[in-house]
């Protein structure tokens, strides 16, 4: 028994920004959904099911908001499904949407990821002061910074690798009109001199807090080919999808290079027939909320031997002109509506192999990887998309 083929035939994004005060929550989602449907040359009537995902409900102060959004998403009378897997949720949601089609149960599925981080106080939403639990008095960065420090110790990486990542991603963002942060004046020195938050993480090496939504239309083989014939844009065929989870704390767990991430990558490459990811993958969108996670994930996802991911960053291999461009969109470092961030990675991978990435297009990209992670670096979601039908 193998899965039915499925492809991305439409991608739509909102402009990402700190506060989208000009639209309601339904308006925000519809903006992304319309664009994805337009891209696919389909209408809401053509959609069989809607799969949505976002991070914790406390962000918007709404419990299970999808029930309120049913009409805005054109879901009345249809299946509407809600995924929540922490920070990886955007990726997981896209995978659940793909499963809807792979199963043969649905033909065309609309999937949407979003977050309106401006609506509530994020620190409140993320960490209630529950008296008997361990308190993170240092915020999310304070959780991940110790693991970055340990990576630096193990790998003996030069101290400025994080600065190089941040500079690359923020400059890439200038080529992406949807990106939240557009900082044309950013330089190596301005990042280096930016405020140290969680040493070794500086302000300019940290993701922003964004409002925004992304939508994709996924379709079965016949539906994808029909849509593509209408739109004139090739589908992004999904060659593989994978999810892995592991406990937040476990004896033997390595938070720096987690097994769940390694296994997720190995699984998705196996499905896609990739034996040498560095050679066979043309472009990667990976979830890098703090600069140093680029070299860490390069190793975790098998693009580099352990301890040497930073060499790829340092050599320029991950720049747009390099042999493995990473986060040409500007990545999470430039845009972070948390519940959407994973799906943006997946959607940007699809844009690349469809040749739709505009100024941040990698010439001739045929195979792209989308990656998301969440929780205590314990939840992983990945897919591989290709311009060529499997």
């Amino acid at each position: 028994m193998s899965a039915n083929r499925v492809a991305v035939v439409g991608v739509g994004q909102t402009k990402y920004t700190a506060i989208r005060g000009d639209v309601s929550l339904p308006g925000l989602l519809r903006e992304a959904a319309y664009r994805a449907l337009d891209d696919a040359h389909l209408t809401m009537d053509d959609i069989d099911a809607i799969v949505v995902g976002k991070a914790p409900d406390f962000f918007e102060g709404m419990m299970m908001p999808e029930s309120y959004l049913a009409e805005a998403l054109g879901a009345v009378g249809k299946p509407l499904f809600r995924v929540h897997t922490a920070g990886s949720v955007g990726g997981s949601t896209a995978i659940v949407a793909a499963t809807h089609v792979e199963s043969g149960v649905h033909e065309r599925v609309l999937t949407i990821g979003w977050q309106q981080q401006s609506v509530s106080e994020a620190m409140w939403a993320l960490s209630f002061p529950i008296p008997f639990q361990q308190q993170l008095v240092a915020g999310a960065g304070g959780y991940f910074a110790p693991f970055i420090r340990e990576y630096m110790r193990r790998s003996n990486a030069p101290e400025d690798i994080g600065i190089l990542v941040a500079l690359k991603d923020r400059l890439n963002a200038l080529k992406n009109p949807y990106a939240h942060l557009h900082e044309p004046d950013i330089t190596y020195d301005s990042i280096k001199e930016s405020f140290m938050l969680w040493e070794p993480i500086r302000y300019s090496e940290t993701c922003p807090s964004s409002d925004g939504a992304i939508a994709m239309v996924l379709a079965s083989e016949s539906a994808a080919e029909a849509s593509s014939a209408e739109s004139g844009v090739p589908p992004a065929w999904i060659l593989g999808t994978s999810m892995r989870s592991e406990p937040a704390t476990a004896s033997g767990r390595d938070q720096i290079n987690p097994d769940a991430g390694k296994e997720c990558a190995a699984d998705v490459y196996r499905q896609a027939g990739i034996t040498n990811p560095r050679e066979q993958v043309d472009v990667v969108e990976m979830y890098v909320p703090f600069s140093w996670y680029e070299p860490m994930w390069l190793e975790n996802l098998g693009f580099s031997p352990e301890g040497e991911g930073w060499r790829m960053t340092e050599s320029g291999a991950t720049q747009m002109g390099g042999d493995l461009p990473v986060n040409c969109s500007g990545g999470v470092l430039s845009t972070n509506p948390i519940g959407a961030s994973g799906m943006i990675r997946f959607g940007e991978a699809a844009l690349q192999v469809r040749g739709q990435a505009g100024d941040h297009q990698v010439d001739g990209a045929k195979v792209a990887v989308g990656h998301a992670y969440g929780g205590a670096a314990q939840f992983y979601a990945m897919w591989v998309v290709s311009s060529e039908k499997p």
Partner: protein
Amino acid sequence: MRDVAIVSVAQTAHRRAAEELNEVELIQPVIRSAMDQVGATIADIGFTCSGSSDYLAGQAFSFVMTLDAVGAWPPIVESHVEMDGAWALYEAWLKIQAGHADTALIYSYSKASPGDLPRVMSRMLDPYYLGPLWPDSVAYAGLQARAMLDAGTITEAEMAQIAFRNREAARNNPNAQVVGSASVDELLAAPMFSDPLRVHDCPPISDGGVAVVLAADDRARAWSDRPAWIRGIDHRIDSHNAGARDLTTAPSVAIAAERAGATGAFDVAEVHAPFSHQERLVVDGLGLGDDVELNPSGGALAANPMMAAGLLRIAEVADRIMQGSAGRGVAHATAGHLMQQNLVAVLEGDS
């Protein structure tokens, strides 16, 4: 389509407040029981999916800790829905249909007792026009009961009879929270709680959980002498806007039922109707006749652990099929206020 069956089910005893337990401790024995019944370890499971709600727990990412109860080491293929576990089962069923897994573990739970449930539930409503008014979930359900009474689709006496039948049936359910009922006349003599709802029309507030193991084809037969095959499953949603809906119907029940192939005769039906009048909506939507045994567990009026009560309905039907006391059954789960979202599953044993 692959043949996919429920091969084991387990549930907690449901009670008002599982005060002494955290959520991991609440759900772990249930997961263990469902796995032990088929002799499975987590390594035998191809996909794990759970359902729970951060708002009920009063914690962001509350499901993360509960993953400890599974023993996700080495790493597992796993997902989570912010929905009732019935939808987690739907995701697992799709995963198996797609050939990505042959087996699945599904669990869902809530420990709603730390918060004020009717008030928490109001956070689910339209944030611009309804949320700021803080309508509690009982009053909101009362609007629907009033609409049905005024339309003549139900009477207060019929509502009391529904409550009576469910709670009397719960005498045979060792896990039920509210067991037994005063007579219908006595129920009708009680004062209004949230007019036109009396206390007996309302579900209890429950802490509890449920776990189910799914398996496909030969694996299902190896794990169970009498698997409860899922012959059809579908879910649909209606409008959120109470003012734009005819509250006396739940169209999505009928659509889901049709898509799931829920026609013909059933030995048993378990429907998820938290408020007495809502049972009528489901029965009508499913087109159930008088010949079906309806809610032998007592339904949500006997125990209503949020996020689990829907999957419990499926588990109750599956259990009867696996035990051999039923041949074919239909299960229904609901989500949202006013029966907004509905899932229907048809289960059947080998004849």
